């Protein structure tokens, strides 16, 4: 059963029949984490790099931003029994429009903010499909931990 993760949203699960899905990532980023032993996984779809843009909104919905959404994703998975050292981390999204080297860089800034948070917390990314100008849908299958991306041109990429 597909469990939909919408924009600025996260879902966690330990139900093996669940597939977590987030549709059509543009410059947003999807973060999928999975503990194969506990069979616990979570998927976050964050939109912007930094909650200092609007701290009020971040309180209301932490999933909007990388710096508030990512810690919450991990915490909620720990609550279901996941252990940090076992987590597999896969990310997708962060697309850019063409030719924006200095401008229209929200995708790249999202990615940089996420990397910074991971680095600070000793989290490694196992696999990623980021950047470029593709639109991606990200899936995480709870039964197996299999994570894959489908682009709008119907290409499938296993992560």
């Amino acid at each position, binding site marked *: 059963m597909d469990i*939909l*993760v*919408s*924009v*600025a*949203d996260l879902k966690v699960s330990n139900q093996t029949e669940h597939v977590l899905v*987030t*549709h*059509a*990532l*543009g*410059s*947003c980023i999807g973060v999928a984490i999975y503990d194969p032993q506990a069979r616990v996984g979570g998927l976050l779809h964050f*939109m*912007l*790099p930094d909650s200092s*843009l*609007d701290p009020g*909104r971040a309180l209301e919905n932490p999933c*909007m931003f990388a710096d508030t959404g990512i810690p919450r994703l991990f915490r909620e998975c720990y609550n279901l029994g996941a252990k940090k050292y076992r987590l597999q981390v896969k990310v997708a*999204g962060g*697309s*850019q*429009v*063409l*030719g*924006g080297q*200095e*401008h*229209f*860089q*929200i*995708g790249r*800034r999202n990615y940089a903010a996420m990397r910074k948070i991971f680095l600070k917390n000793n989290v490694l990314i196992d696999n990623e499909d980021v950047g*470029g*100008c*593709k*639109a991606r849908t990200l899936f995480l299958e709870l039964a197996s931990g299999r994570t894959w991306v489908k*682009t*709008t*041109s*119907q290409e499938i990429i296993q992560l």
Partner: protein
Amino acid sequence: MSLIPQILRSLKNLPPFPMVAQRALLLVNKAEVSIQELVDVVKFDPAITANILRIANSAYFGLRREIHSLNQALLLLGTQELLKIIIASGATRLFGNAAPGYFAEQQGLWRHSVSCALMADLLARELTLAEGNLCFTAGILHDIGKVVLSLFVDQKFAQIMEVVEVQGEPFHKAEKIVLGVDHAEIGGEMARIWDFPDRLRQVIKHHHLNHPESLGDEMVLLIYLADLLVLMFGQNLGREGLAYAAYPEVLNRFNLKERDLEKFLLHFGSLWDDAQVFFGLLGNDHGLQCAHRG
């Protein structure tokens, strides 16, 4: 081989632009519009009153009391807001068919057009544009060229994408290279056939800034920016993804920083949830189902 003759031939079979939207277009930006003029517009499409009430009562407008009549809607929302609703409802007929060249989903083009209209409306308010009232309408109609070009793009999609990927050209330029014409030009041609106001036709034709003059036209720049921001937001993205060009000139013109763009996206994110009723206008059952697809 250019497909221009075939494409132009398909314009000959263009259906008429929906009468109710056509009449409403003429009232946008008019200083004073009487209730009688609005009644005269709406009478061309009896189903539209139901849509007007549904949207007026939706979370998007956040009114405290329920609206039961056109008169009440006019009093509480004002003429220009009401015209936006009428044009959006009237335009649905253009978007009834899938546009497989651009969107894998049946309602993709409609949903993109609505998103762009909502974003354009937001930007027009934030940037206090003189022609602000026309921006929502221009957003809804900016991609009408895709309705006609879709089948041709679908046939040549691999070839067009190859130009994008190998030569790094934006998608609309690749359309021009492969098909001989792009969706903005065809849209401009449709606007001419349908006798749209000149400003609207210019915006549709130039919304990818493919003409040097368009860099000086604030409404064209605003629709271009709205389109780009909607692509970044994601969701109803087309098969071409974000393959459109970034022109930093637009930021200078409106004196915007990157951080402002983030604020627009943030603002749009909350408004988008409340605006699902607009997406649902295209076929109720399917629309509601799609509204939850995020």
